[in-house]
């Protein structure tokens, strides 16, 4: 019971954390991408479709990366090159992806209501670690995407705080005009962050279809992109904080499923609302903005 709950927490947390880590890179460069939901949906759709027809998870994951990057590239052209309002563009991209995936899904699979299933991604037990009672199956018996996501936490923390590249990235988010005067190439750096984020968000979407639902339904991401945005705020722009927030939100989701199954008197919707409520508390109570990059969300355009 507890073991199943822990497995469920990790499963719920993984796609959120993966997308949030990508968004962290983007926000450090000074851009806020509300279109994560769109990139995630596109990744989810591309992964399922390609995996279904080719029978290969690897091809499915590659397709998810391409789809996520493509969606973010549309966003990047508008926001980075043309300095269009980021919130408006992000919202439009989300709605665009929701519509496109819905239309393509019906076109490809018809509206029979019959689910097109794929086999779940293979689990890779980590040798003796996976045999530790309780913790073993909960933590060390997952598919490759889960391990990848949690290895990214220290990796991204290291890149942002300890490398030259991370410093330049933060410089673009702090004061783009000053970064530009130092020859850092704000446009290029923001594009790079958005490309990497597109790949990660696409993979997060692939996790939903290939590892979790094993099929695609319209709007399968169900607001997880927005939860990922919240995770960045609650985690205070620090990848360890992001991991903690994702696990917390993952636990709330897992608990909600558990309660739904048990049919308790506590309305499960309460737990669904937890991520958003917590985000508001963090923003209101702990000066969430104080940790945000200074130029976050401001379009940068040279005179």
């Amino acid at each position, binding site marked *: 019971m507890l073991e199943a709950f822990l497995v469920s927490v990790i499963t719920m947390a993984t796609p959120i954390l993966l997308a949030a880590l990508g968004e962290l890179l983007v926000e450090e460069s000074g851009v806020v991408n509300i279109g994560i939901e769109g990139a995630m949906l596109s990744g989810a759709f591309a992964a399922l479709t390609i995996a279904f027809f080719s029978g290969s998870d690897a091809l499915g994951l590659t397709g998810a990366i391409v789809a996520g990057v493509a969606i973010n590239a549309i966003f990047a052209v508008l926001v980075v090159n043309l300095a269009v309002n980021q919130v408006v563009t992000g919202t439009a991209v989300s709605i665009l992806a929701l519509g496109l995936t819905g239309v393509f899904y019906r076109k490809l699979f018809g509206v029979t209501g019959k689910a097109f299933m794929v086999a779940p991604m293979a689990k890779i037990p980590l040798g003796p670690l996976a045999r530790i009672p309780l913790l073993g199956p909960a933590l060390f018996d997952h598919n490759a995407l889960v391990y990848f996501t949690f290895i990214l936490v220290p990796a991204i923390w290291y890149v942002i705080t*300890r*490398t*030259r*590249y*991370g*410093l*330049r990235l*933060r*410089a673009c988010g*702090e*004061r783009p*005009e*000053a*970064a*530009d*005067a*130092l*020859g*850092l*190439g704000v446009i290029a750096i923001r594009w790079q962050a958005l490309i990497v984020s597109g790949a990660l968000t696409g993979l997060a979407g692939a996790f939903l279809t290939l590892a979790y639902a094993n099929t695609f339904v319209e709007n399968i991401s169900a607001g997880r992109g927005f939860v990922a945005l919240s995770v960045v705020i609650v985690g205070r722009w620090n990848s360890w904080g992001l991991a903690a927030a994702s696990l917390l939100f993952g636990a709330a989701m897992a608990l909600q499923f558990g309660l739904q199954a048990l049919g308790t008197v506590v309305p499960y919707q309460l737990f669904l609302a937890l991520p958003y409520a917590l985000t508001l508390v963090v923003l209101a109570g702990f000066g969430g903005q104080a940790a945000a990059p*200074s130029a976050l969300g401001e379009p940068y355009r*040279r*005179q």
Partner: protein
Amino acid sequence: MLRAIAITKRFGRTLALDGVDFEARPGEIHALVGENGAGKTTLMNVLAGSLAPDHGEALLDDHRLQAGSPRAALKAGIAAVHQSPMLFERMTWEENLALGGFDTGGELLDLVAVAARARALAAKLGFELPPAGATVENRSVAERVRLEVLRALSFNPRVLILDEPTSVLAPSELRAFLDLLRNLRTEGRIVVLITHKLAEAIAVADRITVLRRGRVVARTTPAETSEEKLAGLMIGEIVVQPDAAAMQLRAGDPVLRVENLTLDDRTGRRVLDGLSFRVGAGEIVGIAGVDGNGQTELVELLAGVRSPSDGKMTSGGAVAVIPQNRDLDGLILDMRLWENLILARPLREQVTSHGWLNTSRAIELGRELIERFRIRAPGPETIAGALSGGNRQRLEVARAIASRPRVIVAHNICRGLDLAATAEVHRRILEFAASGGAVLLISSDLDELLAICGRLLIISRGKIRETSPDERDPERLGLLMTGARD
């Protein structure tokens, strides 16, 4: 040799640079002087690659510089120090410098090595550096300028362009700074000093280029010219400085009383420590000090946007505040002139009745004030952001005076303004005092304070001290300001 050939740059309908030719040779300090809006900063930005010109090209030793690429300019050896330091506020000073040429090259960030290199260079220049790991946001303006100069020098540039670097330095720092420029010259570098302080240009430069309204109007040397001649060239007319002595200001009854004013910041640090002073009707009292000694907080208290920890302030009437940062705290640049004017409650009351705004009356009021205060603008419907710095300041002064306050508190009111605009602003302030108003002028510019103030106070580390008439000379005051003697 650094050369700019026939540079033209247009912003919208304004011609910022109109076929400018400029050259500076190795081993010289070349002063670029001109009024606000003459195109000095635009020319710097073109040379430093931050702006691509519409026409013309820049060359360093006959190699053409790639237009609009700061990276190419830095690589070629051109570094710029901007008027408002281009630093990353929430990063540590070491990180700021790591983004410059102290970069150790590896992909890993080695802030210890960066700090060591910075300290070595700073020691050579006689600069003091902040404590290890301090973020930039709490450092004073002068410290920021030093950091930016250090970062520019970290590139080991062949050409160093400095945009008004001295307006924020204390007199003692200024001397060291000018010595630094002379050292750079002896090393065979090209130093381009953008300034509108003519005495400084004459004291330190080898050659001087004068810009007026986007054109070069003179190329000269300090030996061939004088401050008066330069001023004439810059403006194209003679500026009459207002004569404070002729106004015969006489202090009347105290209008602004400040008693034991104390302020602790959120961390419990004492920012203002028991200030007491009075300003009488018809009096201009100056507070001199190096930036970051509590002036901004004092202005915020007097403006009522902050509450003191202890002590009290009373005034015998309305107080109008002209804050230091006119673009952030003073004006709303996206709004029209008349809208900015009626942000002041007394002016708004003149043009509203029962909560309804009479737009045509407000515009008419705007037209009147534009005329009366000689604000150079097409009309009251102009957006405030379209005005030059000097005219924005005139607009603020107009709003303050037209509100008919008893007291005006003004902070660094002429920073960045040229001669003509400064003279105009000073004249208005003097007129206000002559008509019985009380003025508290807070400034780090001693020349300004000595020119128009009656009594002078010194603020240093949050404490205030009255000066005696025999201390009224720039050298003595400069020492007092830096806290060298208490």
